């Protein structure tokens, strides 16, 4: 199995790793970089628990190779809060108890961040399409 040297920025911090071509991005994030806020729910790109932002776009990291993210800027749920202050999306989810069991909440929040960046005043249909993205 071929290996590749990749460099990527995660939550503002640059990382270089030697990885196998088939290493999934979510395994790089969770197991190599030890950022376990990103969860794996279904491993079939259905549920969105593993959603991260890749250059600002929401992406399901369980079905993308780490090598495809080389050179990219990634944001995971750990990067939302700044200086100990929750991101407005985190505050909103807290205030409205926007979760059921909480497992997919990191993915839901990352998706919401991306949605509101493009469309700060979405209607219900926009939101339904947005979270299903």
């Amino acid at each position, binding site marked *: 199995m071929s290996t590749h040297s990749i460099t990527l920025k995660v939550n503002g911090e640059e990382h270089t790793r030697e990885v*196998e071509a088939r290493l999934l991005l979510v395994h790089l994030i969770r197991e190599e970089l030890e950022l376990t806020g990103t969860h794996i729910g279904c*491993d079939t790109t259905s549920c969105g628990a593993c959603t991260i932002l890749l250059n600002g776009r929401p992406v399901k990291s369980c079905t993308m190779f780490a090598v495809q993210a080389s050179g990219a800027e990634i944001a995971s749920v750990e990067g939302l809060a700044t200086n100990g202050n929750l991101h407005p999306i985190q505050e909103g989810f807290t205030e409205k108890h926007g979760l059921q*069991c909480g497992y997919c909440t990191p993915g839901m929040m990352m998706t919401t961040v991306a949605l509101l960046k493009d469309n700060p005043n979405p209607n219900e249909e926009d939101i339904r399409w947005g979270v299903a993205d």
Partner: protein
Amino acid sequence: MLYLDIVRSPYAHAKIKNINIEEALATPGVVSVVTGKDLDAHGLASMPTLMSDKQMVLPIDKVKYQAQEVAAVVATSRYAAADGVEAVEVDYEPLPVVVDPFKALEDGATKVRDDKDSNLIWHWETGDKDATDKVFDEADIVVEQSMYIPRIHVVSIETCGCVASFEPIEGKLTLYMTTQAPHAIRTVLALVAGHVGLSEEKIRVIAPDIGGGFGGKVPIYPGYIIAVAVSFLTGKPVKWIEDRSENLQADSFARDYHIKAALSAKKDGTLTAIKIKTVADHGYTDAAANPSKFPAGLFHICTGSYDFKQAHVEVDGVYTNKPPGGIAYRCSFRVTEAVHCLERMTDIMAHELDIDPAELRMKNFIRPEQFPYSSVLGWEYDSGDYEKALRKAMEMIEYDKLREEQKEKRARGELMGIGISSFTEVVGAGPSKDYDILGLKMFDSAEIRVHPTGKVMARFGTKSQGQGHETTYAQIIAEELGIPPEHIQIEEGDTDTAPYGLGTYASRSTPVAGAAGALAARKIHDKAKKIAAHLLEASEEDLEWEQGKFFVKGSPDRSKTIQEIAFAAYTNHPQGRSGHLLRPTQLDLSFRLLHLCRRHRPGHGRSQDPPFRRRGRLRCSHQPDDRRGADPWRSHDGDGARASRRDLL
């Protein structure tokens, strides 16, 4: 750490002609490939299910359902293990498949199990058939309905999985796993693998935080046994975590009841009898977790909240080429199936008689004055006022207004439905005379320790999967002892520390283990009263309790808080009041201890141990101050601060 991945069958029924593992073994990172024949050499190719049926760990000659485990690959990483799985070549000869339980019962049907005479696992019935038929013959009206409650799969947050870690020096297995019943699993493991040296005291099951079980984490799956076997043979920790796709295809299912029901009534809407015939599809093995006395679980709660004079229920358990079924999802065993059947029939009868479904229910509810009530199928109901509850619910939703709204809407062609359902569920399995798992009587336990500063550690034989036992149990103990819940630490899920229990499923934890907690707390309360009496120089009869303290009747200022009593128990314990406490009268001379601890254990090659490193060996000294006995709040002879729910039953 080694990683385990599993080769699964693409066929629902097939003969295994050959398994070629050469290429897999040559795959980088692969350590070994395990087949049924390898396990068979150790007598581990099959295991008993919780219903005393037989389940394959790995097959030797045939697979019986799609996605069945066929072989396991052990490797140094999960990616390498997956590579190994791809490289295993299995040569199958497909066989005829039977997936319809009615066809499985026909003459000449493909036989699912070579070790059985037919696909009928068991026939179970209850109630008086003749008497029920007679009521039907005399009924003004009879309605009939067939219904299928489909096979479903539970979905918990994390799939099943484990880390099996066998430590060869100590000969001890630690199994971290997502199980709802850690102690029962430990016992089953000892029964399955006792002959290869896994003795129950050498097995520690630890169930950490679990994200939902729904019955799916009660059974033992082949992956667990293979991981244990590989760890046992290699002496290394082995991790097995299912993919979601594997979990949904191969782990045990729920429901799958084909029900044919008939309900009889008088013209005035009095329900008189119910008859139910059910075909239960159990897949290729009966791996449900029902009490052995009741193979269809508690399905005979199907007379529900109504006063039936007669009922008759028949269930046929059937083998098909599917994964095991019969787990208790979202209810006590098979109660959901029973409730659905009865309430559906009640609605059909209401429709047929043109009586409002709420009125029909109210007319037939067991009346408050009938309690305690014995149902015709043998259940004892202690209390209830079902009509009052339904009336209250109807007021809350403004039922009459809803019916008006429905009428108006229907008049203009808009459809609107109003559904009513009531149910009586039997929970809290259970009274030991009727309930067991593999013969283990269904009790549960609690063990409570109060520390000198009045803080509590309480351990239970159940295992929360997100239900919040930590909150519930702490509140129960807090109520009994007057100690704030935030000062009560609750622990479950570690078989080395928690008292034996049957686990969490079928809505049993609060009524059984929670009650054990209350009983244990009451024993502590009684001891605390004795100590308080001593401290206050009063007789026990003269003491009164208010939340958190004892005081002398008529002198509320003469009082001792539970925290003061706890501290006194360790520092000022009255002589003769400590039934379970060894109090040394003089110091022991223990310098010989060094000598003992340097002893070399033959055959273990560990003579270099620093003398004080291992607590286990410190115990070879003859210190009279036994560590456990020195805690007056915790009795280890079974009648002190421990209580079992059996006491109540």
